[in-house]
């Protein structure tokens, strides 16, 4: 079924919307959740929460790209679950390693936290990603949007793991430079 038809089902409050979403994007969303959470059952619950989230968000929303929209809900839900699990000391998946890598892009660590206003930071990250050439952008997003493991990325792109690590390190440095240039660490 086409995305637009699935969205129409959500808008019509027709429960087939969930079944169609599951059939078309269930695997994609589950992969996103599994990358973030180590617990398979948690990941599956996350995907179920995604359909509920989409059900509640539509009909006000009318996403033009349903797959990315649903995956974004999964990602958000999984990160929230990961945080809750961390407080109970059972977090897992790729998340701790990814957070450690991204901390390199935030000079001053905790002290810079106040400066990172979510909305502006989000816009800046989106603008930065637009500047990246195709393969570099895909590798970067596979790691930091989808939280794919370095091993999986290397296999997917046909690169060595050291090449992937080096590409990611270089792009993180670019991101740091970009955020500095945009004034994120200049006393804001």
């Amino acid at each position, binding site marked *: 079924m086409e995305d637009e038809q699935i969205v129409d089902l959500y808008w019509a409050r027709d429960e087939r919307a969930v079944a169609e979403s599951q059939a078309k994007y269930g695997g994609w969303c589950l992969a996103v959740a599994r990358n973030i959470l180590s617990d398979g059952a948690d990941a599956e619950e996350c995907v179920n929460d995604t359909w509920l989230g989409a059900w509640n968000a539509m009909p006000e929303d009318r996403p033009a790209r349903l797959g990315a929209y649903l995956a974004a*809900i999964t990602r958000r839900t999984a990160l929230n679950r990961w945080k809750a699990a961390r407080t109970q000391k059972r977090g897992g998946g790729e998340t701790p390693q990814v957070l450690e890598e991204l901390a390199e892009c935030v000079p001053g660590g905790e002290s810079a936290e106040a400066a990172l206003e979510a909305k502006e930071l989000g816009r800046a990250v989106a603008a930065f990603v637009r500047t990246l050439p*195709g393969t570099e952008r895909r590798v970067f997003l596979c790691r930091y949007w989808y939280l794919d493991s370095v091993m999986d990325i290397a296999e*997917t792109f046909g690169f060595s793991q050291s090449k992937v690590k080096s590409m990611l390190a270089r792009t993180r440095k*670019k991101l740091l430079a970009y955020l500095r240039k945009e004034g994120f660490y200049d006393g804001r």
Partner: protein
Amino acid sequence: MMAGEKLLEAFAWVDPEMVEDARTGAQTRRNTGRRALMIALAAALVLALGATAYGYLSGADWFKTWFSNRDREPLTQGQEAYIESAAVDVGQSVTADGWTVTVETALADQYDIYVKTRIDPPAGVTPEDNCKLEGAAILDADGQKIPFTQRSESLTYYQEAGAWYCVWSQSVESVSGEAAYLDGRPLTLAFEKITVDGGMVAQGPWRFTLDLPAGGTQAVELLSEPFPCKGRSLAYEGGGITESYYDVTLLSLEVRPLRLRVQYRSEKEKELGDGLPISVVLKDGTVVPTGFSGGSFGSHMADCRYQLAAPVLPEEIAYIQLPAGYTVSMPE
């Protein structure tokens, strides 16, 4: 919350098109992994025979490869013909503070310029990550900087065979509304410094005088009267990215080989499409995406530029795709 977590959450703002592309593009790579391996082996063989990837390419051939890779689409005959008419081999080198900058090739229409430069460090210095050319300017006959409507931007940096390469772009339309150069009039380009990880390692200037053909294609205005349509706004709320649309009236939509210029009126003073949904659709169905590359915003008025991922020829264009399904066709 840790700063790393905020940054991880900030990725949720990345354009949905790119999120989708990262997955579908990666799957395509996976499916063609064996082919890629064979190509890599073939490339390695070529390197072993003593050629470098771009070493024997003319400026036009280099730009064809670069634009094609950037756009991820094969170029049309018209696009290739345009690049051949506009790209020039330059080969000018300037050394300052021990660092040599070489403008290898350039491509321009009357309003925008792309320059490929090579940056060679002094002997014994190994180029490091984030080696950059900074302080780019285009100068008038008196050596004064010409103020432009758009800032310059570095599009790609890459390292190859012990040197750094940069593809750099600048609108050469001055704020006075005149192109900075016309066919047959040289253009003086200068870079002020080289930085590594943000710290200056060499002080210039590296100054070049470029005699560029103007690409031979004028701007084409598509609108004969105001055109009501929609602008797109992205927001991240409630766990997902949402799109909303607002009323916009286009006052001018001008196509140039390398860039679109859009002037519009709106109650919302923001960029027409939050970056991505404006594209050029060619008659053969090829879609050439654009990226927002800056604009000036006044009281409910905006004048924005969108850089094309690859050059276009007006005669090959079918229509311009705008947000919310609106299109503007090329005039007959």
